[in-house]
């Protein structure tokens, strides 16, 4: 009799507990607006694949705080208007707990005000510095900024004693922003910009602009802020014209595709990039080696495509968010926001992240490695 009672009581308790956990088990909703198609698809596509891959993995391992993640992913095609529409839908209809959104600077700038208004934590993947400065309470970002890329390039130029440069910049949001950021730190590094040219993001020939740069006396190096296929054509045209001074690309071309497209012309080009690009080449004592090698292996095994830094930014964003939700013990928006802001010593594919109320990016210059393309592959510049 006694045992029966105990058993019944136990069964009842389990039932009650089960009920309680199901009630708390309403899924964690994460919304994403990414440019999986369109001109910025090389950003959005690996981001989307990374996100879906790792969310499935987290769910298989039991989710966050025992809750499964429900993912809402929309493709804005690189169009800021679409990004805004989908952002609104995520917040108002899907009622997501957090946003991982914005593949490009333009789409991100369209989404930030929505997240601020709805008081929903947002981690974005834009390159430009204005996607995180000035700091807004609900907005965070994982990729390096263009300002950091510029400083890394200028640091290298100074080391090589090349202080008189020309710039050829894309007229898209990325190229424009990086160009403007570069101009803010020229005096800090003692760099003289002797000549400036621009090109449209879809242009197919940049020889006229490069001819002018070639004709400019005293230029010791050329810096090309831009992303997409533009820099690949710039690089090809650069070799076609036989320009011999060093060419620096931005972190915007940090994928194998750039080397494939530019071919032999990419030989000797330098660029700042995240450690992910040279994962296996990092020395074994590098603290970042494990995380980047793991991510690279997982991504390449699952998708069959070479890893790019852009997917890595998504990995960092997702992990920072998941960690914050775990520490907060729930998906409560305000608590999660506070916890994201308290992220310290997080080792991501982009570097060590130390967030603070005044820094919602948390990376420093050491996160960038200066790379040189040799024999069709990246090598670390020592």
């Amino acid at each position: 009799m006694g045992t029966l009672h105990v058993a019944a009581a136990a069964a009842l308790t389990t039932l009650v507990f089960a009920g309680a956990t199901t009630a708390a088990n309403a899924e964690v909703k994460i919304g994403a607006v990414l440019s999986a198609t369109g001109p910025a698809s090389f950003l959005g596509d690996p981001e989307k694949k990374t996100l879906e891959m790792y969310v499935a993995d987290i769910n298989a391992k039991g989710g966050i705080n025992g809750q499964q993640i429900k993912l809402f992913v929309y493709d804005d095609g690189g169009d800021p208007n679409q990004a805004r529409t989908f952002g609104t839908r995520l917040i108002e209809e899907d009622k997501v707990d957090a946003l991982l959104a914005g593949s490009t600077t333009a789409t991100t700038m369209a989404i930030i005000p929505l997240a601020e208004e709805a008081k929903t934590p947002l981690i974005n993947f834009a390159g430009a510095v204005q996607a995180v400065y000035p700091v807004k309470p609900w907005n965070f970002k994982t990729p390096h900024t263009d300002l950091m890329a510029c400083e890394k390039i200028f640091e290298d130029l100074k080391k090589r004693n090349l202080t008189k440069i020309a710039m050829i910049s894309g007229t898209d949001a990325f190229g424009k922003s990086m160009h403007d950021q570069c101009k803010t730190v020229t005096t800090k590094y003692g760099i003289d910009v002797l000549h400036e040219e621009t090109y449209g993001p879809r242009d197919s020939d940049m020889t006229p602009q490069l001819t002018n740069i070639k004709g400019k006396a005293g230029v010791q190096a050329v810096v090309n802020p831009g992303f997409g296929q533009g820099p690949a054509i710039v690089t090809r045209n650069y070799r076609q014209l036989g320009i011999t001074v060093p060419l620096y690309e931005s972190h915007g071309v940090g994928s194998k595709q750039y080397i494939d497209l530019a071919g032999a012309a990419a030989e000797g080009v330098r660029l700042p990039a995240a450690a992910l690009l040279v994962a296996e080449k990092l020395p074994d004592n590098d603290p970042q080696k494990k995380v980047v090698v793991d991510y690279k292996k997982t991504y390449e095994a699952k998708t069959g495509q070479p890893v790019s830094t852009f997917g890595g930014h998504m990995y960092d964003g997702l992990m920072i968010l998941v960690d914050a939700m775990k520490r907060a013990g729930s998906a409560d928006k305000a608590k999660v926001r506070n916890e994201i802001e308290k992220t310290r010593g997080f080792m991501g594919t982009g570097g060590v992240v130390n967030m603070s109320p005044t820094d919602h990016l948390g990376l420093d210059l050491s996160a960038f490695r200066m790379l040189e393309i040799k024999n069709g592959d990246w090598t670390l510049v020592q």
Partner: protein
Amino acid sequence: MPEFLQFLASGLTVGAIYALVALGFTLIYNASDVINFAQGEFVMLGGMVTVFATAAGVPLPLAALIAIVATVLVGLALHRFAIAPARGASAVTLIIITIGASILLRGLAAVIFDKRFHSLPPIAGNKPLLVGGAAILPQSIIVLAATAVIVVLLWALMTRTLIGKALLATAANRLAARLVGIDTGRMVGLSFVVSAAIGAIGGILVTPITLTSYDVGTLLALKGFAAAMLGGMGSPLGAVLGGLIVGLLEAFGAGYVSSAYKDAIAFLVILDVLFVMPHGLFGRAGVERV
């Protein structure tokens, strides 16, 4: 002087691409009054099919042939299933159909191929030729030469063969053409075939220089359309010259004035020309088809 030559080479190469697109516009417009905004997608298909065929191990010449045939089939299908059934609809309706077809083709290409940029190995190597201090890619010369050959062949087809004459007759007056026994429907179909083939050849030849992706057609269609308007819609000679002029304007605009305004410069000049000569440089003035 080397700068001038370099700008000239750049302008002519880019211009030749626009010229090929403009030619495609012109042919179809002549035969059917339709402005085919899917013309840029023909260029895209030529490049993309070749890229993926070579990636699958097909030798380049065969891959190029497959690409041309595939694009021609798409052109035929576009005519057969989208344009022909809407025969009798207004020109605006037909233009909207071609814009729809263009979006459809782009979407299909994104799904069937992928969304990345691709390149092809140049036919005659990557080593630039030095002409008077200007570095010119051998591929640019091939593009220009091919454009010239296509124009000559087209001219021969139009004036030296019965089919060409039937095509011209259809362009001049469809009713009269039908009265003398020309199958005008087939002629319009033929114009789609030839346009698609020209587009595909252009796409294959320029891919080593300009790279290609599923969505390169949009901008090419716009620039080619501007070139066709500048040359005078309906004039093959005008289309070629229009294309070259737009290319040269962009190159010289970028080189001598400002790269930031190069597109604006090109379009400003086109607008000015059209203000003075509303039918373009070689357009037939005041022909109203009834």
